């Protein structure tokens, strides 16, 4: 087994060095399933995204197929992105990090793999269900109940062994990453079961549904994403930049502020609910900035407060870009929450742009960094096309900027024009078309990036199994020759 050349292996005390290959072996199968499936879902999500995006320029595009209508393709895209890629990859990385930090092999790798397969089955059923018109109608929770059940069981099967692994850990030290990861593992089943039970199984009445759906979205897309991605950043960034994490306690402060306040945000001022709900939500969004400031300070100090830390290190660049998007998105969220009720900015293109900035610019970018780091270590060989990693970073960065910035500006312009009621609505929405055209180019670039990503991951895995097969074949033939020689 050749060591990856680009980065050094994660440092493990000498006394436990013998377990490194053991840990890698225990994680290999389930995590390869998680990561390759995640990369595949990302490509699928972006095919949907591109179809949805083109429909704005030409409404007749694929309009005669019910399953390809915008209102089905769009949720199919978001669900593939969130459940197919984000949560799946996040869960895989969490398991790997817990095994590494605890210097303990992942227990029950077959059950974890089974969980990963159930998860993927669930997401597949869910996305097909959405395309067939079975969507639940709740944003970010569109997958119908039968798919949600599979997804939930799959998650529990995998996450449980992460927690057991933490209990059995040989390296007893608890670092900030542990706090973030264990909380994330616990967080998802609670919010997912609450949302599914109260919205699908025993639906609550009226707008209470909308409030619960907002609460769920916020807890998944802001709290869960932040917990997992920041855990990765606090672990990986010091490794990649060969510096110590600036402050353990600042990271813990960020953790507390995140879990206490971030879950309250996300309910727009325009919502037809009693006023205390958006008011509390605004307070939550603003107090969450405490966490954001702590993260920004900590990451900045850790990286030496200069972009030099990321020079020639595309993985560190992915992480730093992600943290920048995290800070920017949180500032914008607090900004819109503080605006008065007459602001309907969230109902313009500003809203989707902000959500992409958080989901893609922050979480997916950090995930790219993590998966590029972990994958070569899992299989013990380097990427077949290391240059694609760097190319992917640049193409993803340009893609995200082209996707998000024009829509943010277009949304601001739209809001400004809509304040004047004499402007016909149709003209205002038409005036956003140039911004949409640029964002479609961004989508296209991101799709190319995803293809690079998938190619590298699949190439790496195939290379690994081909080498194993070749070794096994050589072993077998050698044995055959030996026995043949013995007989002769």
């Amino acid at each position: 087994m050749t060591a990856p050349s680009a980065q050094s292996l994660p440092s493990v005390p000498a006394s436990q060095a013998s377990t490194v290959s053991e840990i890698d072996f225990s994680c290999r199968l389930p995590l390869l399933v998680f990561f390759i499936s995640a990369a595949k879902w990302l490509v699928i999500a972006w095919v949907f995204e591109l179809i949805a995006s083109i429909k704005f320029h030409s409404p007749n595009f694929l309009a005669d197929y019910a399953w390809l209508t915008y209102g089905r393709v769009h949720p199919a895209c978001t669900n593939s992105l969130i459940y197919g890629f984000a949560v799946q990859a996040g869960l895989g990385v969490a398991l790997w990090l817990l095994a590494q930090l605890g210097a303990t092999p992942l227990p029950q790798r077959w059950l974890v793999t089974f969980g990963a397969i159930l998860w993927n089955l669930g997401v597949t059923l869910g996305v097909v269900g959405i395309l067939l018109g079975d969507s639940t109608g709740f944003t970010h929770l569109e997958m119908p109940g039968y798919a949600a059940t599979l997804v939930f069981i799959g998650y529990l099967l995998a996450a449980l062994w992460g927690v057991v692994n933490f209990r059995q850990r040989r390296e007893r030290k608890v670092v900030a990453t542990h706090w973030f990861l264990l909380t994330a593992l616990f967080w998802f089943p609670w919010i997912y079961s609450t949302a599914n039970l109260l919205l699908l199984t025993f639906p609550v009445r009226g707008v209470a549904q909308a409030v619960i759906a907002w609460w769920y979205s916020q807890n998944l897309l802001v709290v869960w994403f932040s917990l997992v991605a920041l855990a990765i950043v606090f672990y990986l960034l010091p490794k990649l930049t060969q510096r110590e994490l600036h402050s353990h306690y600042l990271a813990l402060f960020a953790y507390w502020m995140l879990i206490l306040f971030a879950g309250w945000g996300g309910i727009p001022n325009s919502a037809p609910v009693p006023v205390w709900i958006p008011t509390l939500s605004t307070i939550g969004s603003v107090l969450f900035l405490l966490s954001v400031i702590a993260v920004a300070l900590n990451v900045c100090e850790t990286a030496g407060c200069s972009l030099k830390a990321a020079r020639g290190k595309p993985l560190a660049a992915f992480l730093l870009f992600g943290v920048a998007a995290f800070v920017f998105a949180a500032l914008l969220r607090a900004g819109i929450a503080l605006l008065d009720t007459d602001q309907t900015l969230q109902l313009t293109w500003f809203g989707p742009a902000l959500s992409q900035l958080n989901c893609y610019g922050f979480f997916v970018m950090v995930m790219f960094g993590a998966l590029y780091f972990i994958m070569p270590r899992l299989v013990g060989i380097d990427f077949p096309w290391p240059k694609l990693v760097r190319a992917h970073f640049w193409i993803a960065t340009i893609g995200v900027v082209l996707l998000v910035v024009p829509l943010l500006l277009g949304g601001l312009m739209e809001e400004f024009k809509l304040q004047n009621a004499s402007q016909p609505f149709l003209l205002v929405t038409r005036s956003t078309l140039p911004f949409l055209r640029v964002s479609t180019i961004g989508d296209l670039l991101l799709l190319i990036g995803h293809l690079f990503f998938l190619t590298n991951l699949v190439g790496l895995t195939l290379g690994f199994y081909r080498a194993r097969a070749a070794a096994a074949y050589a072993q077998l033939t050698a044995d055959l020759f030996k026995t043949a020689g013995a007989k002769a």
Partner: protein
Amino acid sequence: MNLGPLIFLAAFFSLACSWFGFVLTPQLQIGRLEQTNTVPAGALYPVMRPGLARQGLGVYRANGCAYCHSQQIVQTGTVCDVILTDPGTNQAALLVALRQLRPLLSETEDKEMMTGLPKTVRQGLSKEEASDLVKTLNSTSAKAAIWIVPIGSDISRGWGIRRTVAEDFIFDYPVMLGSHRVGPDLANVGVRLSDANWHLRHLYAPRSEAKDSAMPPYRFLFEKRRIEKTRSPEAVVLPPELAPEPGYEILPKPEATALAAYLVSLRANEPIFSAPVSVAAAPLAPDTNAPAGGAASSTNAPLTNAPAAK
């Protein structure tokens, strides 16, 4: 030190807080909302949508209409207009009061004011100014009333006469408020466009009804059928450039009919306690609205309830 239990408690405590705040409490407050009465008419509101419209809600959900259309009217505040409903017996005193109010207008204009009532005396007042003015006018034995007018760009765009509130949705499942407006808000589309056939034509070919519309056509909700003997009465009437070849007609599938029925049923415009608005009927029925005290008390509490009342 084994920090595992502590981490678990931290996560449990903080998630329980937001669960209590944004799941349990809204359920106790909004989840138990019952039908209310319109103010001042006292009719039950909302009423459940007809069965076909409820099916249409399912079509709306399945095809993700809510990704481009919101159902929430935003209101920036409320202003008060003062309406004169009855000149009363002491018209000379009323004239003096009106002259003080509007010194720039001529006497004849003030006299015109008293014919063809009800008429608006002043617009865009705050609640206090309006009730002072009503007091002044009522002291002359005339009868004046406060007319509540919600304001905001959605309302001046004609999308609704008041903001949408939780009560508007108590019978809907799922509630799809929408988070993005690619197309116009639909909270009151049944008021604006009450003809189901218009909606069918628009669903079949949006640009036939709204030039430059960005909405995709939903032809999969319709079927083309050969005309047997006579045209079906349900066939969609289309402009010649969109009509099928002679001998064929376009019929809405049941989904399209249901969706159109749902769209026509979208009318969140009744005046209710939590979203007060005066509708034209109110000042015309002085029996229910005329006593200034009564009018003021019916407006008082709701006005303080409105989130951004100016």
